[in-house]
């Protein structure tokens, strides 16, 4: 009898304490932790070794949180002509990579940049290039052509890590930008 009472008391107390969490939209428990995490990294880093190996052998393995699921689906269904290159994969490998990309796509992520990317895409659009997305263009609109397409060490906006020194860690902060041949980017 005594123990039943004690258990009820504990259950009640825990219930009362979690109420603000359940009610609040801001997710008050994790708010602080999330903030910390987003400070050091603004897109989730690439964790899948198969994806890193298969896709990362020709170009930087772009974090899946930079494109929405519909884009990844379209990309993965056209690997025979992958921006002019042949990037065919066997069915099993392709399926495994697709699954990773789809479960970690921009709209599935709560990282700051991922949210910005997915929010800036029109529902009727299926962008194939990260650099075609409105948010990306907005963030790069001050960069002159001489620093990117006319810069032999960069060549195109597709080489994130040519300038974003911490791109592989999911960090795209402008303080960590160094443009080859031009130096540190100062806004």
């Amino acid at each position: 009898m005594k123990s039943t009472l004690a258990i009820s008391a504990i259950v009640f107390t825990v219930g009362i304490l979690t109420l603000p969490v359940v009610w609040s939209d801001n997710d008050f428990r994790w708010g602080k932790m999330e903030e910390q995490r987003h400070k050091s990294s603004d897109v989730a880093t690439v964790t899948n070794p198969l994806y890193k190996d298969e896709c990362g052998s020709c170009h930087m393995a772009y974090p899946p949180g930079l494109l929405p699921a519909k884009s990844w689906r379209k990309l993965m269904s056209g690997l025979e002509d992958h921006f002019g290159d042949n990037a065919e994969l066997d069915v099993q490998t392709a399926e495994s990579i697709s699954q990773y990309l789809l479960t970690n796509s921009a709209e599935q992520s709560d990282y700051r940049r991922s949210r910005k990317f997915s929010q800036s895409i029109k529902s009727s659009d299926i962008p194939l290039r990260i650099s075609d997305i409105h948010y990306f263009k907005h963030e790069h609109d001050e960069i002159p052509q001489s620093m990117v397409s006319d810069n032999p060490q960069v060549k195109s906006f597709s080489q994130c890590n040519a300038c974003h020194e911490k791109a592989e860690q999911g960090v795209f902060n402008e303080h960590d930008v160094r443009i080859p041949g031009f130096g540190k980017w100062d806004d």
Partner: protein
Amino acid sequence: MKNTFLMTTLLISVPFGFAQAEPNTVNNLLTVYAAQGANTADAQRGKALWQKTFMAKGEFTSRSCASCHTQDLTQPGKHVKTNKQIKPMAPSVNPQRLTSVKKINKWFKRNCKWTLGRECTAQEKSNILAYIENESKF
């Protein structure tokens, strides 16, 4: 409990062990190509094909293996489009090369299609393998 853990670790690691050490990869593939009519692997012809230029439509009109891998197999290459560094092809400086049938098949398929505009024949693949394997002699 500890035993179950050990067994699981062992069972999981076995396939990876196999994936890394694939003895006689090149010989096995040469046997496959021989069964398709390519009886002798000619490294000299492999080298010639490696350096031959093919014309294509699109962004890069003249293409060859050397476009990305360079003509010196002991040197690192660079992807013509993405600029990404490609590790040397020669097993003498990069022992990881020519150790996985799956990888060789994958890259032959993709890169022949891009460079030559078609898949390579058994004879061409056989020659190229012989060239990469014995690059220092040619």
